[in-house]
């Protein structure tokens, strides 16, 4: 490692420095506002470090980490999403009794984990990034630790995530056994594998897939998603839905740019089955839910199923369409969970469908934001959701994956039904007695953020070209 | 000749360690008596030397009673663990060139491994006795030993950095020019503390604290099982003393006298120091003990390690 290597690492270094600073500040002076401000500054600074890091790319810094345009794009995405989540968290945490400061520390640690995932080029950094993310999430999910459902959700997540990690590790070990290296970009080296080696590799990759599938909550590894989405505090749910999954997608794209996943192979078929199941089961199960957080959980299962369609197509469009869709999905989820967060109280989350009845009459602006997010989730105009899905489908069409596309269409049609159900509830006449909850205060910062996100969503729906061009430029470097 | 030399070594060390431990019981009582201006055991044999033999006969013939409420297998296992781990640790101690059971290239780690396993004996004894004093003693010792183990390993890291090896023989050889207690004085101090805590000696004897926990984890033990805890403690003292000598005081190195004698002399000094500490220091409160470990000792060892590492890196000695 040389001094030149530090420059591309700047975003990570700034983030780590911010973590240490926040930790020390907490040790000497507990102050919610101060910690919040420091966290914001840390995240903004590390976003600001991105342009500084962007000269002389791509650069491999030790075998573990590679920084290239793709990585920088995803770092920006992850950091921005985490910044938004932190902004929403403030008013929620104000109502939390007890220590609030550790929340920000853990949030930044989790973000660091996701950033490491994005830049990792090696099983070791993959594993450490993933686990830093997970370990922080265990605590974040149980953060308001005197609510029973938090503990329950955290334990479920911990047990299942740890089991998934061990699958992942075993898979990595087998892959290492075959390749003799843990570095992604050396795995493509065309060595003539014996039958034995390819058998081992298939088992290894299948086990890796279990781990990744779990983190993305794909069917049949999705059991945790609804419980954790419901049980976790609303801002943490937002984090799980956006930052954590975004990091994994970036990693998956990088890993499978080198490890072959040929069309029609056994592994490919299993992936396809998972995709179809996720799209169908996610949407069908969402229909019967009456809890908005659970609905969003099932809907996220389906959405990552859609993403897999483009992934399986593995053609020129795959990476750019997935990235674009992911950006749109993250913005949409941030709006949806942001609204839930600002309306929620730690003891009583604003999550039952009944709570939303007549929201429009009582809270005009949040209702509009939420409505917009639902439109985007249902891929209706004028939002980015529509463009994204067309883009995904185009990738599928190019590789003629008709079965997967059929599932995508069926899933989307079911999706429209339940998203609109929620949307309609918002605009219905409120029941007389449901006016009990007092209108929470929307902090100016949160409101500005929501407005910006909504504008972004609409702009992506109308002028997607600039972002697509940017993504295509950065994606070209990969693979 | 060479075929049974290892066996001679093994049994020699085993016999030596056990005899030393038994002798230590007598030594401790005599020395304590001297410092407290009393006689100590002086009836059985010359200078009361046979007192230990008498004690052993008593302990052997005592009824070996297992309380009905205890968890029997674990209850029996606990004292065996302490004897096994301590005796196993003696295997890697280099007493003199040619004397010693094995020369292990990870000897130091082996020692740490055994000392971390010995925690179980106390914890299991405390748990299986199914009595509240024992349980409290067991919990205290678990917390204490876990905390002190952390910097026990770290305090030795400086020595490893300077010697460049985990092998105890290499470490002794590396002290030909200067004994490590001079450059590694902080390491010595912290290791001494950790060693005291690991052997539950005063002032760190909170797990057994007669006055508050009525002997803590081994309240329910009697007969030979109690004897094993008892002897185990003295074995521990001998072990930690000889380990300090190996790591910091040049092991067998020394002029004129044969190496083995040097080793024995140096070790005796530290055994005496352990006993003197018992005679002179009061027992701290439990939270003070923990705070001391985490807030004073751990930073000190880390500082020591960083400085040592930096110096070695800079000057390469």
């Amino acid at each position, binding site marked *: 490692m040389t001094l030149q290597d530090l420059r591309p690492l700047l975003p990570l270094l700034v983030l780590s420095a911010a973590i240490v600073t926040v930790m020390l500040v907490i040790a000497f002076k507990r102050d919610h506002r101060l910690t919040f401000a420091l966290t914001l500054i840390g995240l903004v600074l590390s976003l600001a470090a991105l342009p500084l890091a962007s000269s002389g790319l791509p650069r491999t810094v030790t075998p573990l980490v590679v920084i290239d345009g793709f990585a920088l794009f995803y770092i920006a995405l992850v950091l921005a999403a985490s910044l938004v989540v932190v902004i929403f968290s403030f008013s929620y945490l104000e109502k939390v009794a007890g220590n609030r400061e550790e929340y920000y520390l853990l949030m930044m640690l989790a973000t660091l984990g996701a950033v490491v995932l994005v830049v990792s080029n090696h*099983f*070791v950094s993959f*594993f*450490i990034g993933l*686990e830093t993310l997970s*370990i922080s999430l*265990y*605590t974040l999910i*149980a953060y308001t*630790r*005197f609510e*029973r*459902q938090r*503990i*329950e*959700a*955290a*334990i*479920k997540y*911990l*047990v299942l995530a*740890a*089991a998934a*990690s*061990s*699958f992942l*590790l*075993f898979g*990595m*070990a*087998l892959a*290492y*056994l075959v390749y*003799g*290296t*843990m570095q992604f970009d050396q795995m493509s080296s065309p060595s003539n594998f014996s039958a034995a080696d390819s058998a081992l590799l298939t088992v290894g990759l299948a086990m890796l897939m279990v781990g990744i599938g779990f983190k993305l909550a794909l069917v049949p590894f999705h059991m945790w998603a*609804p*419980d954790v989405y*419901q*049980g976790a505090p609303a801002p943490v749910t937002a984090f799980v839905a956006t930052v954590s999954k975004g990091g994994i997608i970036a990693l998956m794209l990088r890993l499978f740019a080198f490890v072959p996943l040929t069309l029609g192979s056994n592994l490919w078929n299993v992936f396809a089955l998972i995709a179809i199941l996720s799209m169908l089961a996610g949407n069908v*199960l969402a229909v*019967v*839910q*009456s*809890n908005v957080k*659970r609905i969003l959980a099932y809907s996220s299962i389906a959405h990552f199923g859609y993403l897999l369609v483009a992934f399986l197509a593995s053609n020129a469009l795959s990476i750019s369409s997935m990235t674009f869709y992911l950006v749109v999905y993250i913005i949409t989820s941030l709006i949806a969970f942001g609204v839930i967060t600002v309306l929620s109280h730690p003891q009583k989350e604003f999550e039952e469908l009944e709570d939303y009845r007549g929201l429009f009459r009582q809270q005009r602006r949040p209702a509009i934001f939420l409505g917009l997010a639902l439109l985007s989730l249902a891929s209706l105009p004028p939002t980015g959701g529509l463009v994204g899905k067309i883009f995904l489908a185009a990738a599928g069409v190019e590789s003629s994956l008709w079965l997967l596309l059929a599932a995508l269409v069926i899933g989307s049609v079911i999706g429209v039904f339940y998203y609109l159900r929620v949307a309609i509830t918002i605009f219905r006449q409120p029941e007389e007695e449901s006016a009990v909850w007092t209108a929470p205060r929307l902090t100016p910062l949160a409101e500005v953020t929501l407005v910006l996100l909504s504008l972004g969503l609409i702009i992506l729906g109308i002028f997607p070209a600039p972002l697509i061009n940017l993504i295509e430029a950065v994606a070209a470097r990969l693979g | 000749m060479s075929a049974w030399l290892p066996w001679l070594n093994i049994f020699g060390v085993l016999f030596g360690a056990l005899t030393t431990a038994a002798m230590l019981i007598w030594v401790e009582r005599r020395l304590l008596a001297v410092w407290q201006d009393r006689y100590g055991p002086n009836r059985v044999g010359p200078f009361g030397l046979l007192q230990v033999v008498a004690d052993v006969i008593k302990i052997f013939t005592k009824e070996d009673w297992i309380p009905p409420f205890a968890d029997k297998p674990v209850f029996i296992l606990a004292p065996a663990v302490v004897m096994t781990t301590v005796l196993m640790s003696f295997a890697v101690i280099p007493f003199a060139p040619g004397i010693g059971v094995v020369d292990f290239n990870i000897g130091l780690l082996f020692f740490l491994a055994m000392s971390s396993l010995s925690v179980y004996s106390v914890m299991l004894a405390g748990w299986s006795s199914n009595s509240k004093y024992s349980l409290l003693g067991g919990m205290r010792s678990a917390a204490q030993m876990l905390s002190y183990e952390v910097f026990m390993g770290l305090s030795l890291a400086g020595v490893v950095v300077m010697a460049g090896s985990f092998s105890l023989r290499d470490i002794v050889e590396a002290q030909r020019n200067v004994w490590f207690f001079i450059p590694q004085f902080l390491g010595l101090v912290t290791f001494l503390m950790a060693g005291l805590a690991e052997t539950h000696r005063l002032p760190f004897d909170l797990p057994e604290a007669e006055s508050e926990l009525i002997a803590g984890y081994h309240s329910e033990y009697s007969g030979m099982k109690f004897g094993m805890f008892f002897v185990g403690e003295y074995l521990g003292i001998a072990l930690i003393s000889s380990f300090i000598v190996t790591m910091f005081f040049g092991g067998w190195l020394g002029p004129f006298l044969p190496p083995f004698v040097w080793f024995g002399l140096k070790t005796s000094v530290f055994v005496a120091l352990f006993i003197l500490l018992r005679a002179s220091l009061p027992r701290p409160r439990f939270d003070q003990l923990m705070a001391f470990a985490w807030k004073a000792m751990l930073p000190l060892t880390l500082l020591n390690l960083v400085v040592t590492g930096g110096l070695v890196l800079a000057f390469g000695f």
Partner: protein
Amino acid sequence: MTAIPLNHALILSAMLFTVGLVGLLVRRNIFFMLMSIEIMLNAAGLAFIVAGTRWGQPDGQVMFLFILALAAAEVSIGLALILRLYQQFKTMDVDAAHELQG
């Protein structure tokens, strides 16, 4: 050193992994579930050591060190959660906690 049949070591790790998995699925006591996870992590670690041995590289051992770090962090949080669970539900049974249902 001696010649150990590496595929047998690998099969051992697969067996341990499966046993851990069975334990995880069958036991309802959260305590045993955590222990089963430890078994699975260890089995994966063994596989890494075997792989490292095959290539004569230290990388497998390095990975094991990171697994150790993970296990320590995970267990400490898991046990803290167990304490919470026991305090709030008065049980170690994970199925007793079922407030989250769709």
